[in-house]
């Protein structure tokens, strides 16, 4: 049982607010990814929830109980740092037992809980190992076990995968998912890697420059960004300015139906991989010239200049060459139209 609620949370370093007016709810048993570029204030939020940084304004509630004044050691939330931070003077079992010892739990009860959590995290047989004898992945798993063994209401994870190499990261991702299903622990999980956020979480909250920009499912954020910055964060910067009249968006000779109401300054966005190069012009097409082609492996990135601006296209195969005239097709069902900005009606 664990529920976390942040209301208008503001955290400052000195005078400067790092995170401002944050509202976020993590439901019981849910795993929410807090996604954002480095320096967006993600870790600051986790530290505030864990009680390691004071909240200057707002409320932090764990299981509906206000915990702002509760010191870190008495909060029912455990923070796992980016580095495993295992105590080098204790062995694996000693590290996992640390929190239990602090809670005054020892003897057979503690041993049983430690054994159970070591089985879940795949650490069987390593109890007496010194921590410096462990691999990076094992260390991270000990750190996870050390938090989980306390059965906290909320487990806060600060980029737990970023110090691991690609293969270990994949294993750890799966482990976190499995542990979450098996223990039902509520988790708030910070990352700057969108694929990590999408793969591990039930919901994603996007944090840009200290404020929460959009919260929702991975698909929602990816295909229906709330504004230009969110779209840009997910690599979709193809904007078309236009207007909405009578249920139709019109801009730069493109037209597409929309459920949104009339708006004088509307903006549509389309993901680079949804754009198509076609043989001849027609509806929802723009003439353009290829400006740059860069081969990136799985796909190729083309910059195409048109009368309505420059658009980025991701193609599976490197097609076209620089200077080649092309016709760009915008499938209308792939256009996403942002909510009308304030005063844009």
């Amino acid at each position, binding site marked *: 049982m664990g529920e976390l609620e942040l209301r208008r949370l503001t955290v400052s370093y000195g005078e400067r607010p790092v995170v401002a007016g944050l509202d976020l709810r993590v439901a019981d048993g849910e795993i929410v990814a807090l996604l954002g570029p480095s320096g967006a204030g993600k870790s600051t939020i986790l530290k505030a929830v864990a009680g390691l940084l004071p909240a200057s304004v707002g409320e932090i509630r764990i299981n509906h109980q206000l915990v702002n004044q509760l*010191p*870190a050691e008495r909060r029912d939330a*455990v923070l796992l740092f980016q580095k495993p931070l295992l*105590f080098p*003077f204790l062995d694996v079992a000693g590290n996992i037992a*640390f929190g239990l010892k602090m*809670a005054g739990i020892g003897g057979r009860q503690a041993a049983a809980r430690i054994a159970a959590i070591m089985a879940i995290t795949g650490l069987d047989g390593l109890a007496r190992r010194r921590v410096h004898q462990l691999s990076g992945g094992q260390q991270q798993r000990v750190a996870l076990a050390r938090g989980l063994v*306390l059965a906290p209401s909320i487990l806060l994870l600060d980029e737990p995968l970023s110090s691991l190499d690609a293969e270990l990261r994949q294993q750890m991702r799966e482990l976190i998912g499995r542990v979450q299903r098996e223990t039902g622990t509520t988790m708030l999980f910070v990352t700057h890697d969108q694929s990590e956020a999408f793969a591990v979480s039930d919901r994603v909250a996007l944090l840009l420059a200290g404020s929460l920009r959009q919260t929702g499912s991975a698909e929602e954020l990816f295909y229906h960004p709330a504004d230009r910055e969110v779209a840009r964060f997910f690599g979709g910067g193809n904007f078309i300015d236009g207007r909405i009249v009578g249920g139709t968006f019109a801009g730069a000779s493109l037209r597409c139906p929309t459920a949104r109401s009339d708006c004088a300054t509307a903006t549509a966005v389309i993901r680079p991989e949804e754009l198509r190069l076609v043989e001849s012009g027609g509806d929802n097409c723009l003439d353009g010239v290829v400006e740059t082609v860069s081969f990136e492996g799985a796909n190729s990135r083309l910059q195409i200049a048109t009368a309505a601006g420059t658009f980025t296209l991701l193609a599976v195969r490197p097609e076209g060459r620089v200077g080649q005239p092309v016709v760009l097709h915008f499938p209308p069902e792939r256009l996403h139209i942002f909510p009308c900005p304030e005063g844009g009606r």
Partner: protein
Amino acid sequence: MRRRLLLTAVLVGAILPFLPLLLWSFAERWFYPALFPEGWGLRAWSYLVDTAGRQIIDGLVASFTLALATTALSLLLGIPAGRALGLYDFAGKRLLSLLLLLPIIVPPLAVAMGLHRWFLQLGLAETFFGVVLIHLSVCLPYTIFVLQGVFRDYNPDFEAQARSLGAGPLAVFWRVTLPLTLPGIAVAALFSFLLSWSQYLSTLIIGGGRTLTLPILLFALIDSGDRPVAAAVSLLFVLPALLALLAGAQALGRGNIEGVR
């Protein structure tokens, strides 16, 4: 080959200076230009044990309690100071570091003489605590200097992690900070102990002859011109320092310096 050379150099450098002392302490007659004593005996050692036994034991106790008290206070003040200087940046940090080293830059005689006046006014002169304080003026700068280095490479996230796992401030100190910094703290304690142990001038000035530590007795014996006895006391004087050094090396050898990068 190179290792053996190093070992020889260490042994020669560390042991050889003690050889004359050892010879002197067992010498009955040893006059110039004889290379070795002409008569051997246990007079010096029996003097040490019988005649001056009481005095020597008192001296040992005085030196030991002083060094222990000084080391304890030195760590008590030095750990927070070293931590602040090592971990955080603040205005005036360089100036503060310099001021802290001042007592060991200024000649110790000047420090002791200057403080003596002041200690007289405060009623600290010729008291145990007064002598501890004057020893502290020498030991504390070194302690802070060593601990500053320790904490410069220390990762305080370990403490944050411990707190998040349910450890209160006291438990964090005893179960996390201390074990992580133990090698460095052992070095600082050793420095402090040995410095206090070998203080002569400051003990004499502030103690005013009432605090009779081993070095004070040693100087008195050397003054009296009885070289065999002085040599025997010197060896006795070195022994605890040597033991402390070995104990310190032991604590260091245990070194798990993971928290200290």
